């Protein structure tokens, strides 16, 4: 297990090493220009997230602040506890399949409310990192080709989404 954990520190240095070598020795073009182009796009897309994030974080924050979040979580917690899922991550489970910015908003709320190293926060981080927003992905992938009948795509995607919630919680308990 320790070797596995150590290996996670090598991924970023390894990729940066490759990039450094490419920029230094690449002949085809000036690769630092590529870096700057990509970085500019990254900055723009991060900033363009703000309006959506603002609305959704206010929504999630009202949901937890008004007490209704706790009310529902408490009601569900005997059930959630039995299956090993912390009931604090309920807003995240509800928003994850639908929207990436909404689930980032819920994750931000969970991280600051319960502490980044707490059990709910770790589960939430693994859930958000390991699956995408399935409803959004399915609808946007097929929309342009006007394929209305997506057959069994959505049921499988939602099943995976639920499965990832369980598996993430199990993995968090096994690792940390």
């Amino acid at each position, binding site marked *: 297990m320790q070797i596995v954990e150590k290996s996670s520190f090598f991924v970023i240095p390894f*990729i940066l090493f490759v990039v450094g070598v490419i920029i230094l020795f690449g002949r085809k073009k000036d690769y630092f220009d590529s870096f700057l182009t990509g970085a500019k796009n990254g900055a723009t897309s991060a900033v363009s997230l703000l309006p959506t994030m603002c609305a959704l974080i206010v929504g999630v924050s009202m949901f937890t602040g008004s007490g209704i979040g706790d009310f529902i979580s408490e009601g569900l917690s005997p059930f959630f506890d039995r299956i090993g899922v912390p009931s604090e991550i309920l*807003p995240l489970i509800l928003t994850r399949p639908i929207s990436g910015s909404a689930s980032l908003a819920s994750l931000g709320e969970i991280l600051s409310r319960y502490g980044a190293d707490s059990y709910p926060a770790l589960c939430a981080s693994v859930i958000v990192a390991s*699956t995408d927003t399935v409803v959004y992905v399915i609808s946007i992938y097929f929309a342009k080709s006007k394929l209305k009948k997506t057959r069994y795509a959505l049921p499988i995607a939602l099943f995976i989404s639920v499965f990832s919630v369980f598996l993430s919680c199990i993995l968090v308990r096994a690792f940390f």
Partner: protein
Amino acid sequence: MLGKCFSVFCLSSIAYALVFGDLRALCDSVLLGASKSVTVIISIIGFMTFWNGVMEVLKDSGIISFLSRLLTPLLKHIFPSSFKNKVARDEITACISAGVLGLSNATTPLAISAIEKMNEGRSSSYATKDMITLAIIGCACFNLIPTTIISMRVSQGASISYEIIVPVWICSFACMSLGIILSRVIGAFSADR
């Protein structure tokens, strides 16, 4: 969809606060939430900028097309009809390689164009098996480094940050494999129309 999400959160919170009388907490949470959104964006903006730059270098230098060649033998089994008929082969491999490297901005347009290619010359409004498999792989979004999540965790003072990479790999890989298996098994029982 997002609008609905927002309204549901808003209206249910207001209704609950009106009934149980904690309007002060509700008002506070509106103000705090709005300012928190800026903190969240600031926590991801730096690393997103940097990482997108890094990925652009990998893309321009041809590493992605190298990765595509490595993945081809595997993908042949996952998308049997597209690879046999040589339809959208390059689009599919490019899309999946971009996904593995965590280029989420590039993955979606590539997947959309792959599905458009697979749909050329068809008049049915039903998705084919290979299209569904591609969408399921998109849902599991297997990527090497969950950069956004790590940078959010680091900015919130987490001591466990990079260590989440391994559980994320396991979870994402398991979801992806399960999705592919389910999609192939169910696909075996229904014909493309």
